[in-house]
């Protein structure tokens, strides 16, 4: 029996050059085979196919043919004008459009086939050495065929024709919107068995926000990411969002530190943030999150690093003005081009769109430092489900490009009383997490700052008080008394009270010393007097003893004399 030889090229993959898609499919579409792209109206099918050809001819030297069954070539080219593709610059022998819309004045009578098209295509494909081909909205022409058998026959005719030429092909098909898979009930459901790869495009609107998703439904003989991935159609065309691909080398780590813009915070962090780290600053409204972001931006500009500040909440100019009031001056850096302010008005759409735009602006600006204030804006209504993924990819992306990222995140006072609950759950991803909160005491709100975590850094465990003044931002030690943390005026009061108490104590001590000195002196005087008295007594005692002795002698002498005088008794010997 003859063994069928699989052409070598068929085993390979034809890269689409579409960011993210080649990663999902592990290299692109099956080379020399057919792929089915199914999606509802406006889901981006045409764009996908067209980009496959444009990238093919520009990046991979594989000229392609676009067979347009639905829209005319002129209109398709016009539709891409808002993108930076510049299709008109592509020569005809690199990318050829073939109009194949059923003509309006065409009358149909009976069955037909697509041999006319294939004959023409064969001629053109041979001339330009085409390697890729896209049949856009094949359903348009199939619908004219009288019965199912005829449709099937024509699809297989195309398939055979392609297989013989070893061209990589995309068929696009319309699906009822909202359809998430091509079932066999689909009029062209049989096509999914014929093709080697099937891709579904899904466009839905969640709470008024347009969300686009792409999913590879099947891929013969290849591993692929089976999950739905968000995508956007941006300036550069189709862009599929994807997570970091496993096995790809991690971004180089560095021990370099960059200043946070606040001296004491740098000390607390053991020298500052790490270069290309992602920093999350959380806090309730008004806890000076923006100020911290601004301080970082200013410090970066002072070092001469290109920086971008994305402000979702207010206009860039407002942010600059407001930051100037706390001594953070950014105008000069905007003027000299180091700092780029991007405000919400220039960034619109779904979270995915925002990410694409942020990335685009940052790349254009060649930013080394990036501030996003607040990143929680990404999870506005309609984006809740996707925002987390977007934030993750933002962090991954900035790491890969060695951009130091500072994100602020608003905590909802009602929902996130728990300290560790940020709306995007990105606190686990961030390298450094600084939390700002209010401490309400004695009719005052004061800002407290603490470092919740900082990977790979010894960091202070202390809460500090954040003090904003005209001269800038400083961190004050907080006062702990009796297990209570004091800030603001209470800290000041407590500090003064302690100073006063110290002074009083000092005086009392001195007074006591004087008193003691006096008492000591007095005692010494008394001691002297007593000692003198003692001496006197001793003298007295000696004198007394001497007089007694002499008197006795006198008495004894007197008696003897008397006896002598009397002459009566013999002198008695002393015993």
């Amino acid at each position: 029996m003859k063994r069928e030889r699989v052409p070598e090229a068929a085993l390979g993959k034809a890269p689409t050059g579409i960011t993210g898609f080649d990663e999902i499919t592990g290299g692109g579409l099956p080379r020399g085979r057919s792929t089915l792209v199914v999606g509802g109206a406006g889901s981006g099918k045409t764009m996908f196919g067209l980009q496959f050809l444009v990238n093919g001819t520009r990046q991979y030297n594989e000229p392609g043919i676009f067979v347009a069954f639905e829209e005319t070539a002129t209109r398709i080219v016009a539709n891409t004008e808002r993108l930076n593709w510049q299709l008109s610059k592509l020569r005809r022998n690199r990318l050829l459009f073939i109009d194949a819309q059923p003509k309006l004045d065409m009358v149909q009578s009976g069955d037909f086939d697509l041999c006319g098209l294939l004959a023409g295509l064969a001629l053109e494909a041979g001339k330009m050495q085409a390697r890729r081909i896209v049949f856009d909205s094949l359903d348009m022409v199939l619908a004219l065929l009288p019965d199912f058998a005829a449709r099937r026959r024509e699809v297989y005719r195309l398939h055979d024709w392609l297989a013989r030429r070893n061209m990589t092909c995309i068929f696009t098909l319309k699906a009822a919107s909202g359809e998430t898979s091509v079932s066999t009930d689909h009029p062209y459901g049989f096509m999914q068995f014929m093709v080697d790869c099937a891709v579904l495009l899904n466009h839905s609107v969640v709470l008024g926000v347009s969300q686009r998703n792409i999913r590879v439904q099947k891929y013969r003989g290849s591993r692929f990411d089976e999950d739905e991935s968000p995508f956007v159609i941006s300036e550069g065309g189709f862009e599929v969002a994807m997570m970091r691909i496993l096995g790809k080398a991690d971004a180089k780590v560095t021990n370099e530190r960059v200043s946070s813009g606040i001296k004491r915070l740098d000390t607390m962090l053991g020298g500052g943030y790490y270069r290309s780290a992602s920093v999350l600053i959380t806090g309730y409204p008004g806890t000076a999150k923006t100020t911290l972001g601004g301080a970082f931006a200013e410090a970066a500009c002072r070092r001469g690093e290109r920086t971008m500040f994305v402000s979702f909440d207010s206009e860039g100019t407002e942010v600059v003005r407001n930051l100037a009031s706390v001594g953070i001056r950014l105008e000069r850096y905007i003027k000299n081009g180091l700092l780029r302010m991007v405000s919400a008005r220039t960034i619109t759409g779904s979270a995915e769109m925002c990410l694409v735009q942020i990335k685009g602006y940052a790349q254009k600006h060649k930013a080394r430092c990036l501030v996003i204030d607040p990143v929680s804006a990404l999870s506005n209504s309609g984006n809740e489900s996707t925002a987390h993924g977007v934030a993750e990819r933002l962090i991954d992306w900035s790491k890969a490009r060695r951009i130091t990222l500072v994100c602020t995140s608003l905590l909802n006072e009602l929902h996130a009383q728990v300290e560790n609950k940020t709306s995007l759950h990105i606190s686990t991803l961030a390298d450094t997490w600084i939390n700002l909160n209010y401490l309400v005491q004695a009719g005052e709100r004061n800002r407290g700052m603490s470092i919740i975590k900082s990977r790979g850094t010894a960091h202070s465990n202390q809460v500090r008080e954040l003090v904003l003044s005209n001269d800038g931002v400083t961190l004050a030690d907080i006062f702990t008394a009796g297990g209570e943390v004091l800030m603001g005026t209470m800290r000041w009061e407590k500090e003064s009270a302690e100073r006063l108490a110290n002074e009083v104590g000092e005086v009392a001590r001195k007074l006591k010393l004087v008193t003691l000195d006096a008492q000591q002196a007095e005692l010494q005087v008394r001691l002297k007097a007593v000692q003198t008295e003692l001496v006197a007594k001793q003298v007295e005692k000696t004198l007394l003893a001497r007089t007694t002795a002499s008197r006795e002698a006198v008495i004894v002498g007197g008696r003897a004399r008397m006896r002598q005088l009397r002459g009566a008794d013999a002198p008695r010997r002393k015993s």
Partner: protein
Amino acid sequence: MTRGPVYRFRLFVAADTVNSGQAMANLNSLCRERLAGRHEIEIVDVFREPQRALTEGIRMTPTLLKLAPAPARRIVGTLVDTQRVLETLGLDTDPA
């Protein structure tokens, strides 16, 4: 028998496919019945002359072009629906 204008047709076919064979047969019988002696048929095989198919914008085969008399017409398919074909060619009112 009234002599009308000469009908000039060009039929694009794809080699010896069934569709094309049917179209040729249908056209021939139509001409025999309705346009005896006043028709010219040119058969173009798209596989032999693909450039002509491209130039004429032929995507589906068989495709019949009526070149004369004006207006020009284009009919795709096997021409199985005789009434429809006659209407399109402006022959429906022309008595046999």
